[in-house]
């Protein structure tokens, strides 16, 4: 089957804003989503480890219950922040995304079911976290497993989306949607790249918790920073291996995107690499300091930078994969200025209200 003819045509309705705006919103909201997602993903794994170690150690016991209380909230954040990139992705990459989703229909649908299980599981843990119930460990494990699986399904869909050359063989072999993208040889390295990042961010999150507890429970805070910092540094060091493996396993053309072919992508790569190295160094050395807080702040900022640039790279990679088929110049545009204006106004107002609500919530309790 001819690849070009099987790729769905662009939707005939014009884009309601310039292409670049959707791309910008896609990347920005994706970064936010991925941060929350990493905290849930890494956090739930670390929580499980803490649960095991908590049998003999009070600090771990405490870490477990601190994480457990936060997981549902971060999962809520992951989902709400995930809706936005999902929306913008459909606007500009719908032809690819809808197609790959339909080809792996059932696994893709399963995401919803897994999410519900994981979510209720996390809530059970959050509400009963401190109880000594042996089922809780299993529930946590089940929820984490659901999250791990969801990530894997996403990797399947998003790799398949970028490789139209494999669509027809999969679809015509099984139009009932019982497919995955397992024969894509970059799938596993790519997925591991995300898993490792999530574990690193989860570790850093634990360290950040420590920073927040510094004023009230110094010993516990030190423990958190040490423990979290270790997860972060080891995972990120491992990430250098996984990432490089992923890079060299990419098809030559895609690899070259980051090696000079595409200046923007190459610079992003260099910046991300440097920032990642910097963050490892700073966080690792700050855990040895008397007051590690500053180091954690700087390291975290650097890591956010890494995530931003990695997200840009991820996007460049997709465009490189699709370069033969995808030409954004072909989009017709008829900007809906009025609705766009309302959105931007509400968006900014919403952020302000959101910050205000959290501020009110986190100020000292004040009962009248």
């Amino acid at each position, binding site marked *: 089957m001819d690849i070009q003819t*099987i790729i769905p045509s662009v939707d005939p309705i014009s*884009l309601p804003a310039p292409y670049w705006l959707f791309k910008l919103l896609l990347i920005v909201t994706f970064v936010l989503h991925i941060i929350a997602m990493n905290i849930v993903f890494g956090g739930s794994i670390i929580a499980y480890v803490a649960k095991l170690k908590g049998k003999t150690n009070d600090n771990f016991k405490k870490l477990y219950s601190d994480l457990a209380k936060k997981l549902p909230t971060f999962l809520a954040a992951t989902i709400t922040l995930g809706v936005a990139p999902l929306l913008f992705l459909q606007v500009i990459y719908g032809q690819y995304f*809808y197609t790959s989703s339909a080809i792996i229909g059932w696994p893709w*649908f399963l995401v*919803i079911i897994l999410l519900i299980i994981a979510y209720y599981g996390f809530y059970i843990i959050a509400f009963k976290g401190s109880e000594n119930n042996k089922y809780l460990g299993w529930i946590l494990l089940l929820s984490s497993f659901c999250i791990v699986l969801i990530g894997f399904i996403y990797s399947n869909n998003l790799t398949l989306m970028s490789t139209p050359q494999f669509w027809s063989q999969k679809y015509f072999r099984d139009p009932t949607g019982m497919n995955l993208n397992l024969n894509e040889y970059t799938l596993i390295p790519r997925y591991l790249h995300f898993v490792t990042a999530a574990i690193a961010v989860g570790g850093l999150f634990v360290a950040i918790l420590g920073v927040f507890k510094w004023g009230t429970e110094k010993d516990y805070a030190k423990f958190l920073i040490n423990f979290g910092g270790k997860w972060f540094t080891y995972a990120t060091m491992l990430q250098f291996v996984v990432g490089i493996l992923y890079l060299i396993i990419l098809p030559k053309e895609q690899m070259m995107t980051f090696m000079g072919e595409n200046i923007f992508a190459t610079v992003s790569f260099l910046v991300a690499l440097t920032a990642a190295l910097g963050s490892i160094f700073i966080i690792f050395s700050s855990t040895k300091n008397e007051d590690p807080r500053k180091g954690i702040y700087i390291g975290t900022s650097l890591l956010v930078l890494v995530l931003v640039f990695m997200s840009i790279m991820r996007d460049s990679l997709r465009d490189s994969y699709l370069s033969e088929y995808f030409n954004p110049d072909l989009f017709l545009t008829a900007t809906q200025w009025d609705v766009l204006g309302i959105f931007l106004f509400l968006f900014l107002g*919403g952020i302000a209200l959101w910050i205000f*609500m959290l501020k009110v919530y986190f100020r000292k309790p004040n009962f009248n």
Partner: protein
Amino acid sequence: MNYPVWDVSFGSGLLIAIISVVHVFVSHFAVGGGLFLVLTERKAYKENNSQLVGWLKTHSKFFVLLTVVFGAITGVGIWFTIALVNPSATSALIHAFVWGWAIEWVFFFLEITAALLYLYGWKRLDKQTHIWIGWIYFLTAFLSMVVINGIITFMLTSGNWVESKNFWDGFFNPTYWPSLFIRFAFSLSLAGLYALITISRIKDSVFKSFVAKWSLKWVLPSFILLPIFAYWYVANIPVELFQSTNGLMATATQYATLISIFALITFLLALVYYFFTSKINLLFSLLILITAFVTMWSFEFIRESIRKPYVIANYMYGNSIYTESSDFDQGFSIEKINENGILNTAKWTSIKKIKKENSIQAGEEIFRVECLSCHTYDAYRGVRNRLIDRGWDKNITSQMISRIEHMQKGIMPPFAGFESERESLSDYLHNNISQSELSAFKSGKGLFDKYCQVCHQYSSDDPVFFVLTGADREEVEYYLTDLQGMNDLMPNLVPNSKEIEIMMDWFPKQFINQN
């Protein structure tokens, strides 16, 4: 046409129906329940009723766990599902309304945050701030409904959007306001109904009666208003669409009956409960929730049924074919597909040319791209059984499909493609049906059901009987052997001579005293 069709064995329509109905039943609670929480909290403070505050804490936990988790995820689930099942329509909605969705997302984000702060805030916030967070919750939840309602109603009544492609024309379409009022009234009643679940666990019977009476006061007025809003809603739906609930379309009529019955039962139960509040237990509260659920289910099903054959009214059919040919249709309009053939047009068919040996497989692919969005072969709305019940053989089926758009008063899109493709489709449909399985009809009424009743009704107002009641036998024979000669909108059916003989006797005698 443009996208691969996900072949869900038990029916993709059923999958969407299940997800959306459960979602709707929770998401409406999320709106009305928000107002219920703040007003009940205010009442509790005003009356200095700490027992009520205590119950609210439990109830708000139930509320958040249900709406924030199940409600939110099934909402995302609807997105996943419609994108899987009908990518072209989803793409159209997203292109036309992306800023609407984006606005809705802002509200959604605030709504979820406020819900969590409200729940956790019982322990941290002073009374005033807590209520204030509750108000933010309710307002943002309500506003998400205000936005999403525009997009859902657009699909049923696309208004002037089809010509103008203007956001606001589509958004504030003819059913926008009545639908918003229906949904809001229903959401208020759900607030009271769901409350019965946590109320049923209250031990103190005086207090229980007190809260239950307060909650049922949210149900009774809404159910009195609902029929009025429903009438307004119906008045804004084009008559042709709504006809189908009037006996012309089996499913829609069934649900129209169901909704009236179950709305009434829910109302009466609420009324009875009002006088026996101390007796309310979990079973009773679940019972009334179920009757309310059936009411909501019927409402959504009627909306879905009367929207057929369209997925977006006057723009796109349920099977993703554009209704009108235009420069932008990419070849996916009925007219162009009739010129070029369905196999050549649909991107996701492996067979492009029909030969004798691949006809059945080609037919399966045609079925997939043209019919699978609403049917399955032998499960949900399975075509196989319909053919057997009607007693249609391969030839009748093919003829009927050529005028499929007239069946059941226009519930299906016209068949698009070549005659040879239509024949392949019938080959496929009959590949697993043996002649002996087909129902056989020997009476006049039976033959009327077999040949005519998909498009005509057995009623003296139907054109069939205008013409054939009281006609001569020869006249009837003349018509029956050349239906298309009489009216080209009809299929070219050729009943055999025995059947014609029976009908010649039968038709002239029907409704003879009325015509």
